[in-house]
């Protein structure tokens, strides 16, 4: 059922219940104006909503009742039991129509003339026709309502008073029973809750999230804790609660659009235009209150597009455009905001007309206009009392124009921008901030202070160093970075925020947070990048509200307060001029379009030879660059003093010659407490690519080759290097002692992708597991048949043949029913999670989240051991 309709039914059921009561009260106190006012209002609302939803029959009945009530309210009529009866009767009619509506989702056919005639007669002050005595009033003429039969029977019996009374009683009883039987359904499925209650809930959940974060932070600093498992559960429950509470306040924006297609159709008719309305992102959710507030501005804008923006078919043909004009509505989330784009492909804003109008209305002098850019002139349409429609039509041009739209949007903290090209069309961009939201943010440091940047506007992180290809260059003092054939303007966060002592700091070695705001991309230079954290955006104190750089503040897991940067504010501070106008949207669009494929962030580097090499970024713990002189030789192998320990270093192949001076970039792979470094020539880039590895390489240390960024690239086997560095380093005997690893936990790895099998097997082996890997569920089950036992099964979800879900079900019903299964998947949606838990997966891990995998395995095995 349509949401609107459902809401209407719920609301009307409530109103009608109140009305019944109030009318009976009114009969007893006919002169109570408050009662009357309330009754009138309720009936009026029902009428209004019916009209809005296009329910003519209901509307006409409600309208006739409203008329009578209006007269009573104005003192033209006096409340008599007759009037109350007739009105109650019309309410009953409305109820029966509503119940039919609920069942069929359409108004039943039929005619209410009888009832309306009675009502109108009363309204006109005529005495009721003779038949309309209370007795007859209970016996209306036939209708198509569900109670027809009884009523008809009743009407025939009207003459015989005795029989009539009985029948009417029977009818009444029947009607009541019928009603009682029907009432539950829709009305009972939802309840109304005051928004304040939800708001309080939200605040409380926010606090809970913060406390949870604090607890998790404490947990992280403790190696082994008995709180780990319950805290994990608390973590999950909190996240779900948070999501649930957020959902209670959210509604898809499509609700506000529901009536637009009809409106546009009618407009097209009226204006003799052909208009095609396209709506995208209707499922974008936003806060209910905000939704209510933008309904009118949106309607107005669409109406404007249809009336002013689009030309008639003739003009369009002349301009070489298709007859049918297009209005596009698009909604999406961007940088913690909701953006609604309303665009048409019409004639664009007429600059000359606007100028003339501005002049005529005294908004600007001619000399001022002459010096204004087209964009500035276009802004006049947002000024009060401005309308360019040559004539005032029914549709627009009544003086309540764009200024009202803008005021309404600004009231809720939003902005409206416009872009217009003569002959090409006009686009409006409405941005509405998402207050109350819990967002994921990147924590960075600048000038010894930490700040949060909303993750949603961060595209990538780039590390710039003085002597690599990625270095910061200056043009007249302004810093820039060459990034993939583009020039990225940079802004130094410390100097932007005027943090003392930051100005003299050299920014040659820096982290750059590549940020996107709207269509603009720029880099924020920070000293350090920490982690991402889920944060609750809290508004800043009023005293700080005029600082546009901050979107809010929050409390981190460690209890400290930090400011949340507002990328929009920063963009504004840099000014449009400093912005890269490169159309990033096309790039991001393609990046988003194929997220369904297994896209993996890869670190590209060069080492030994010209062929670029790559390694999944998730496997790399850190990137370091050290002076070659810091590398020492111990036991014939290169090592580095790193974070208070000796870190073994390996080269890409034994033939690789280490530089003798300068700086040496190192990829650091970590495994628990141990880490090792891979010496490389140069770190080239980070790309997100579909990894299509073609196997068959003979070379050790390579998984194979793939085409990445248009070039044949060798994918290195990080696991191999870990084994080379760590196994021989820490436990030289281990390699030969395979047979004695009896106490090692046994893992069965099921994955159809040879790439992942090759990647994970060495990783898990190094972590001390005894790994058996198979390429399909059937092979795994064959092992089960063969009597093999494992401590944990790690399985992929998407596999040809038997899927992970089916495999889990099979395992749970077989000999391995007590063996825990951990799911491994490229995409984890909430639905997958649910399904996974149902079929018996103990946990769900994103592919390539190595730490999570190892943690989960440890936990799963411990839990099982304890059980």
């Amino acid at each position, binding site marked *: 059922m349509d949401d609107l309709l459902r809401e209407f039914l719920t609301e009307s059921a409530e109103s009608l219940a109140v009305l019944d009561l109030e009318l009976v009260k009114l009969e007893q106190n006919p002169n109570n104006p408050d009662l009357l006012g309330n009754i009138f209002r309720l009936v009026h609302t029902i009428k209004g909503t019916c009209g809005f939803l296009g329910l003519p029959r209901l509307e006409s009945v409600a309208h006739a009742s409203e008329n009578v009530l209006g007269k009573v309210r104005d003192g033209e009529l006096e409340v008599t039991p007759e009037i109350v009866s007739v009105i109650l009767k019309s309410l009953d009619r409305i109820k029966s129509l509503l119940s039919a509506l609920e069942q069929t989702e359409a108004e039943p056919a039929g005619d209410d003339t009888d009832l309306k005639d009675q009502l109108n007669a009363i309204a006109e002050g005529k005495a009721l026709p003779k038949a309309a005595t209370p007795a007859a009033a209970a016996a209306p003429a036939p209708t198509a309502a569900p109670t027809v039969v009884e009523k008809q029977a009743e009407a025939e019996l009207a003459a015989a008073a005795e029989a009539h009374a009985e029948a009417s009683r029977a009818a009444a009883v029947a009607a009541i029973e019928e009603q009682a039987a029907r009432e539950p359904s829709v009305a009972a499925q939802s309840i109304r809750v005051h928004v304040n209650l939800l708001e309080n809930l939200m605040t409380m959940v926010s606090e809970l999230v913060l406390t949870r974060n604090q607890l998790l932070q404490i947990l992280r600093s403790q190696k082994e804790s008995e709180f780990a498992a319950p805290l994990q559960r608390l973590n999950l429950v909190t996240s779900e609660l948070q999501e649930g509470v957020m959902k209670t306040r959210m509604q898809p924006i499509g609700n506000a659009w529901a009536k637009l297609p009809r409106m546009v159709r009618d407009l097209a008719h009226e204006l003799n235009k052909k208009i095609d309305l396209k709506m995208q992102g209707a499922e974008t959710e936003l806060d209910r209150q905000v939704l209510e507030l933008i309904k009118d501005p949106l309607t107005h804008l669409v109406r404007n597009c249809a009336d002013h923006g689009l030309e008639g078919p003739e003009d369009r043909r002349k301009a070489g455009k298709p007859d049918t004009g297009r209005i596009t509505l698009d909604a999406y989330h961007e940088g913690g905001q909701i953006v609604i784009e309303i665009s048409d492909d019409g004639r664009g804003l007429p600059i000359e007309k606007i100028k003339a109008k501005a002049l005529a209305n005294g908004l600007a002098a001619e000399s001022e206009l002459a010096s204004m850019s087209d964009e500035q002139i276009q802004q006049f349409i947002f000024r009060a009392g401005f309308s360019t429609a040559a004539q005032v039509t029914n549709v627009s041009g009544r003086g309540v124009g764009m200024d009202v739209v803008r005021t309404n949007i600004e009231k809720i903290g939003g902005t409206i921008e416009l872009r217009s090209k003569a002959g090409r069309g006009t686009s409006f961009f409405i941005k509405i901030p998402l207050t109350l939201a819990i967002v994921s943010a990147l924590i960075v440091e600048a000038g010894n202070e*930490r700040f949060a940047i909303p993750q949603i506007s961060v595209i990538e992180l780039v590390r710039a160093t003085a002597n690599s290809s990625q270095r910061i260059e200056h043009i007249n003092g302004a810093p820039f970075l060459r990034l993939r054939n583009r020039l990225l303007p940079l802004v130094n966060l410390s100097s932007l*925020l005027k943090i003392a002592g930051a100005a003299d700091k050299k920014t040659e070695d820096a982290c750059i947070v590549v940020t996107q705001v709207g269509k603009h991309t720029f880099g924020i230079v920070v000293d350090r990048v920490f982690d991402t954290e889920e944060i609750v955006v809290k508004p800043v*104190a009023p*005293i*700080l509200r005029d600082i546009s750089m*901050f979107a809010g503040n929050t*409390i981190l897991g460690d*209890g400290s*307060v930090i400011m949340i940067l507002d990328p929009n504010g920063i963009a504004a501070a840099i000014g449009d001029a400093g912005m890269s106008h490169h159309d990033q949207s096309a790039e991001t669009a393609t990046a988003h379009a194929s997220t369904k494929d297994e896209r993996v962030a890869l670190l590209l580097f060069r080492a030994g030879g010209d062929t670029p090499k790559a390694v999944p970024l998730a496997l790399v713990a850190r990137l370091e660059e050290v002076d070659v002189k810091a590398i020492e030789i111990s036991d014939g192998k290169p090592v580095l003093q790193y974070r208070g320990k000796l870190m073994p270093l390996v080269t890409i192949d034994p033939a690789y010659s280490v530089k003798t001076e300068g700086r040496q970039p190192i990829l650091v792979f970590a495994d628990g407490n141990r880490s090792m470094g891979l010496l490389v020539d140069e770190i080239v880039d980070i790309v997100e690519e579909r990894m299509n590895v073609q196997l068959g390489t003979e070379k050790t240390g390579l998984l194979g080759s793939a085409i990445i960024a248009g070039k044949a690239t060798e994918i290195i086997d990080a696991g191999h290097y870990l084994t080379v560095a760590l196994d021989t380093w820490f436990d030289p005997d281990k390699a030969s002692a395979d047979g004695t690893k009896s106490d090692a936990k046994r893992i069965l790895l099921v994955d159809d992708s040879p790439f992942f099998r090759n990647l994970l097997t060495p990783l898990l082996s190094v972590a001390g597991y005894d790994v058996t890997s198979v390429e399909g569920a059937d092979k795994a089950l064959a092992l089960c048949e063969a009597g093999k036992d494992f401590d944990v099964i790690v399985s992929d979800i998407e596999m040809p043949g038997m899927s992970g879900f089916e495999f889990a079900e099979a395992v749970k019903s077989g000999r391995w029913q007590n063996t825990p299964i951990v799911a491994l998947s490229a995409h984890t949606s909430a639905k997958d999670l649910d399904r996974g838990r149902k079929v018996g997966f103990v946990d769900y891990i994103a592919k390539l989240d190595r730490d999570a995998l190892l943690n989960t395995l440890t936990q799963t095995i411990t839990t099982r051991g304890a059980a």
Partner: protein
Amino acid sequence: MSVLEKTNSGTSNEAPREFVSMTVAGQLFGIPVLTVQDVLGEQRITCVPLALPEVAGTLNLRGRIVTAIDMRRRLRLPPREKGASAMNVVVDRGGELYSLIVDSVGEVLSLPAEQFERNPPTLEPHWREVSFGVYRLENGLMVVLDVEKLLDIKRAEAA
């Protein structure tokens, strides 16, 4: 404010009023005890760049974010010496919490109305703006601060 005005003009029958006393750069100040939410020792304060100079930063009070006001700056007194201890007096203003950073916090004083006097005319205008008046105590004079005005910091003033 109206209550205090009454106190000033009223008779000695008025109940004594209670103030939290505090010192800033050697001067004794008092604020009505009911406006004080909390008194805290030295806190970790996060600086807020670009904020008014009077704003020392923000701090976390049991999950609520509190804006800290440096009272020395607010009252145009010399900055605190390095290493000198400080205290936070947390007050509520229209649902928002603010912390006044002072040198030390003394006891709660219950003071009879007849010891109160309106701002003496010679008091510096800047101070007069943020205070109700002065209590004559045995061991000195205590300036009663108007928290509302104290927190109404304007950007122009800072310039």
